[in-house]
């Protein structure tokens, strides 16, 4: 009697759409301004947090491990962020082809680089 119920259950389980993880489910608290964090979450986290499948991306910069970075590395990474977004190398073109709405606007580029600049200067004083 239970068999048909079980069969239906199996059927439903097998036909569930593959779980597509949300772009961001990891909660990263770094005490950075919300407007900057929003941009990072939308446009960078797909490849630059621990749970990302992009090995190369997260080896270059992993926001989940930010607090473990040495001071000199933090300064270096902030400096890289400025360069990458200003030269529009990041997010990469290939990624933006798939997700055009994750491109950074000129104002966002300015916001990110000004923040990173100030943050790096602050860390230099530590």
């Amino acid at each position, binding site marked *: 009697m239970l068999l048909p119920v079980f069969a239906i259950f199996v059927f439903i389980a097998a036909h569930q759409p593959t779980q597509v993880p949300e772009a961001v489910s990891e909660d990263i608290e770094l005490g950075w301004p919300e407007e900057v964090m929003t941009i990072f979450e939308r446009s960078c986290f797909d490849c630059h947090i621990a749970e990302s499948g992009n090995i190369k991306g997260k*080896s270059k910069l992993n926001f989940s491990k930010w607090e473990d970075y*040495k*001071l*000199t*590395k933090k*300064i*270096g*990474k902030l*400096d*890289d962020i400025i360069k990458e977004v200003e030269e529009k190398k990041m997010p990469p073109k290939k990624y933006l082809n798939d997700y055009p709405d994750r491109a950074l606007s000129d104002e966002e580029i300015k916001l990110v680089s000004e923040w990173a600049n100030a943050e*790096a*200067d602050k860390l*230099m*004083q530590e």
Partner: protein
Amino acid sequence: MKKIGRISLYIILGSFIFIQFFRVELNTSAEVPEHDLLLVHPDMETDLQQTFRTSCYDYHSDNTDYPWYAHIAPFSWVIDQHIRNGKHEVNYNGYDTLGKRKKIALLDEICEVVSDSSMPPANYLMLHPEAVLSEEDIAAICEWTEMEALKLLRRK
């Protein structure tokens, strides 16, 4: 059929000779690079200096030690592009013109890219086996870059 074969051979040979006229400007400089990383750090161990010269300076300085095939197109074009890209990332001859923060960022990056084997690039190493970095080379590079970065950081 034989004729077609001979004609295509001439065409290929002709194009090969033709492209040789498109020379690239060689990356060589007679100027003394007064801001050079190694010049401003005379206290750096000789072995480590040599490592930088052998493994990094071909694409990251104003003087490339060209192999013979680098003068033949189309290889010359590819190599020229690699040198341009390399120098855009960093030119060690201009190290001392960088600000303190840029220096720290660069020093950190040097250790990172040699540790994850992204530098020197695999295609370069295929033709330059002498540029392969051993574990000891990498450790020596990172020890120096970390020490130097901290030194810069402490210098207010």
